[in-house]
């Protein structure tokens, strides 16, 4: 973890409200593992006191990239980031997905920009598996090419059926699980809370391991402010708040306490 001043390499629309921001950040790139994130100070966002967290999408050769969706003040201000900007980021942050990729076959489940860390994860895995990508409509389905080129099977669902199958991502996942009753998959999911909950429930019911990357509003990003907490059940069964930024963002689904 360090503060790094990163220069902008490229910054492009990848479709709809999504953009990829590629940064020269050798120190972050050198140590990042999939599932970790950077805490970015958005330039020219005067009057703003908080950074914005983004998963690391790629990290290689001194360069990292993030894939972001414009959803509010901060991400909208990011659109203006240009070649001349030097961005102040803290990273890499968080635990990342467990390095030991246990289990027979990896199943990745992504919602929206949740594909970003999963694409990074897929790129470091020795085995190939299936990625389920869900979104509201065709515009929200990203990185399909990433996975295909790495030899992964891609299953797409959209709420409006504009691409892939119509329905929630769990529809496709459920079918896979039904079709492979003997499989011992390990699940890796990143996306909105509702999706994580649904994936986690299925995994816990079927006694599969599932790693969920949680998305909580953050203050410091380093574990100091206790803003980003998630209720987690300890080994002794007691519940306590864990910090998504430092103890997570990746948690074992079996330990997550849902409201």
């Amino acid at each position, binding site marked *: 973890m360090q503060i790094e001043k990163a220069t902008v390499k490229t910054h492009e629309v990848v479709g709809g409200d999504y953009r990829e921001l590629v940064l020269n950040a050798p120190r972050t790139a050198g140590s990042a593992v999939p599932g970790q994130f950077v805490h970015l100070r958005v330039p020219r966002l005067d*009057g703003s*006191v908080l950074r914005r967290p983004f998963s690391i999408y790629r990290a290689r050769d001194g360069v990292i990239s993030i894939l972001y969706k414009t959803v509010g003040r901060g991400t909208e201000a990011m659109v203006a980031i240009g070649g001349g900007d030097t961005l102040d980021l803290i990273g890499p942050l968080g635990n990342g997905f467990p390095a030991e990729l246990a289990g027979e076959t990896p199943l990745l489940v992504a919602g929206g920009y949740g594909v970003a860390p999963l694409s990074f994860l897929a790129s470091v895995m020795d085995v190939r598996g299936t990625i389920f990508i869900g979104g509201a409509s065709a515009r929200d389905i990203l990185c399909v090419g990433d996975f295909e080129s790495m030899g992964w099977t891609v299953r797409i669902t959209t709420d409006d059926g504009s691409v892939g199958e119509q329905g929630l991502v769990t529809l496709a996942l459920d079918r896979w699980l039904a079709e492979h009753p003997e499989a011992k998959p390990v699940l890796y999911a990143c996306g909105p809370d509702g999706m994580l909950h649904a994936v986690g429930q299925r995994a816990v019911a079927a006694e599969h391991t599932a790693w969920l990357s949680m998305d909580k509003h953050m203050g*410091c990003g*380093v574990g100091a*402010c206790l*803003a980003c907490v998630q209720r987690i059940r300890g080994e002794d069964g007691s519940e306590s708040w864990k910090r998504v930024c430092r103890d997570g963002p990746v948690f074992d689904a079996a330990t997550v306490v849902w409201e």
Partner: protein
Amino acid sequence: MSKHVQPPSLVTTLAGIAMDNPVMVASGTFGYGPEYADLVDLNRLGAIVVKGICLEAWNGNNIPRMIEVRGGLINAIGLQGPGVDGFVETYMPFLRQFDTPVIVNIWGRDEAEYEEVAARFDDVDGIAGLELNISCPNVKEGGIAFGTDLTMASDLIGRVRKRTSLPLIPKLAPNVPQVGLFARAAEEAGADAISLINTLPAMVIDIETRRPVLANRVGGLSGPAIHPVAVKQVWEAAQAVSIPVIGMGGIETAADAIEFMIAGASAVAVGTANFTDPTTVVRVIDGMADYLVRHDMATVGELVGSICE
């Protein structure tokens, strides 16, 4: 050209606590030390004030606990913490590695608990002082109820005073019309210093759902938005007492910190700005030294209360 060939001295002694410089980190914005240790050289800090600690481990509030607003943020963490034993076991071994004084921010759900917590730190090695949080807007019990009632504040400080030999620094609430009265009450009750301001009670409602954004409904506003309110309260408090005052609220730059010192603060604390830019404390320390050189001051003490009215 400067009269002083020596670099100016930032050394500060506050309530008997010897500090290399008067720039501390504010409670709740710097964890317990290790969180920022990769990013900030803890030995540079004037003092570390840790997140509020009560007797037993405490869960704090439900989420959401924080929301950004124009010029600041509102938090309602609700004083989540590991309790006295948890803190001492988990964090004190780490903190003792540094030369930086450690001030523990303490609170209780009632007066007896406040006393008990304070007493427990008396024989813990490596604690430089206690900041008594009587101004947290985010807990039902304890907190701000004490800090906005003169009799309660005075009584509580007096009781805690009897139970600790450590320097005692009550942290005052900002949302009172005459903070000087609270400052004086604290001094009379035996405080060694006072600190202010804590966050301003505030609220955000999501107009689409018509629900308060924070689970706790109300939270505390911090950051640049409150800086001029804090300067005014520090100025008033400093005039009311002869014990030292620690000023905080919205410090982002050395200039913000210097403003507090001119208003009468003997030391300052950086809070929310740690989140924005973890190098803030170091920038403030360096900027303060530069200012002293530029203004031909040999020691930071010359700055304290130097307001021309």
